[in-house]
């Protein structure tokens, strides 16, 4: 399993559009991609659950990637956070 931590810089946090784009991105990989915040964990492919985390600007999230293609998924998801959030 690979993990990274990320501090959200987007002004409105993980809002609808990036959450949708993230779900799309996450579905490209076999690996399970989990977003954790304050002990709550949800799968990145689940748009409404991700929005339900209520991640705001300045919050730290932990992202866990596990599966056959975890190296590629890890890089892609990390890049996604850095450019969009």
């Amino acid at each position, binding site marked *: 399993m690979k993990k990274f931590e990320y*501090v959200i*810089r987007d*002004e*409105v*946090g993980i*809002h*609808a*559009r990036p959450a*949708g784009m993230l*779900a*799309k991105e996450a579905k490209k990989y076999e690996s399970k991609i989990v977003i954790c915040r304050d002990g709550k964990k949800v799968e990145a*492919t*689940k*748009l*409404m*659950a991700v*929005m*339900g985390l*209520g991640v*705001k*600007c*300045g919050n730290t999230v932990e992202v866990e990637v596990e599966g056959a293609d975890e190296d590629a998924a890890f890089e892609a998801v990390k890049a996604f956070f850095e450019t969009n959030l």
Partner: protein
Amino acid sequence: MQKLSGKSVYKGIVLGPVLVLKKKEQTIKRVGTADPEAEIKRLEKAVELTALQLQRLYEKAVGEVGEASAAIFEVHRMMLEDEDYRNAIYNMIRTETVNAEYAVAVTGDNFSEMFADMDDEYMKARAADVKDISNRLVCNLTGEEETNPTSTEPSVIVAEDLSPSETVQMDKEKILGFVTVCGSTNSHTAILARMMNIPALVGVPIDLDEIHTGMEAVVDGFRGEVILEPSDEIRARTEERIREEKEKTLLLQTLKGKETVTSDGRNVHLYANIGSAGDVGYVLENDAEGIGLFRSEFLYLGRDDFPTEEEQFAAYRQVVQTMAGKKVIIRTLDIGADKQADYFNLGEEENPAMGYRAIRICLKQPEIFKTQLRALLRAAAFGNLSVMYPMITSVEEVEQISSIVEEVQKELEEQQTPYKMPEQGIMIETPAAVMISDELARRVDFFSIGTNDLTQYTLAVDRQNGRLDDFYNPHHGAILKMIRMVVENAHKAGKWVGICGELGADTELTETFVNMGVDELSVVPSVILKLRKIIREM
């Protein structure tokens, strides 16, 4: 006559008949089913149809309001395809052996409640999105036609609430404005109204049973008011204001996107002065070619402690990204004098305008300065950012700034933090800076003349003292001579020079400035097009 207030999401003013939209109460009955799998098949067909409709709406919205705002319908489609949402519906059909309509309605309510309960205004507003897709899905299940409210004449639409899809489906030609009882300024309907340039008020405590279609109403987005059955006097005043707005829009349409160039081909850049990230909308709306003065004080004022590097970085980055390649000149901290923040502990001063302020604080307390510089250099990597230093009086100050910037650059380099070296200029707002502008010009990339302070220091007139108003004459020959000198010295060194003080917006002097060779005028956004008109007619 009845006057009600609400939150305005688009500044405009209209007068016209009301069209009241009442939601048909969708009562969904719980019906047991013997064949849940057949219900699921029905559901799947309805989902497919719904996805198709959302795709069409998306395409319509792209054409009308642009890709970014239309994205909401793409998000709706993704919500529709959300696993948790879909599984919850399937589960309910199977375990409770109920009809698909009922399962969709209940699941929709549950998910929408989850959003409504969140402690974040943006997320609360998403409850309406979930409701919107659930309703659409139910309509497709029952085979009900979508109700597409239209009226024969352009009207003010008054409703309890409007979903984004309702908003986009309406015939734009028939909408004068929106007034809703619910809704937040964060709702997508509000965003769409803004993009469609339609005055809209949300959160108006209006009783839909007390009003009726055909009533006359004024929607005043500037004041956030709706006036039902206006008096003759108000109607006349409104008509006058509508005429003025139209003229402004016409000016905008004829001059928007046009170059600011004189008839003999001299080009002047027209930039905007702003004081907070929220003003960027006005900058774009008035077609400024960039931001010539972005006062960074808003980040420091009205709070208890210094803003962090991350906070500053996020704010600067957002502005340069929104301006998408257009120049954004950010002025470093200009606290002191009339702008005070307690945590700076500046203390009382006999003569604050000539006191411990602006660059003087930055050079004496470099830790404050360095935090801002780090944020600026990092944000510069995201767009066309320039940095400008205020209150310069000597070459030594510029040299000190350069060495602090170098330190910051070295640190960022060592930490492998992405950054870019921005264009750097200084404000010319002291007579001293004017007199040595030849030497200063060799050390910086540009000048921006701050005429407010320059006038106060040159004429020895305190700007805060109302009794001196008659002595405060920015058209004083001394000021104009100084500006000419600064322009000449800048150009000799091959540097550009602008004016960002109030004098830059003085239409009586525009011609004089252009003839002097001033390269840029930075003014309040609302004056941009007026100046462009004058310059193009020169």
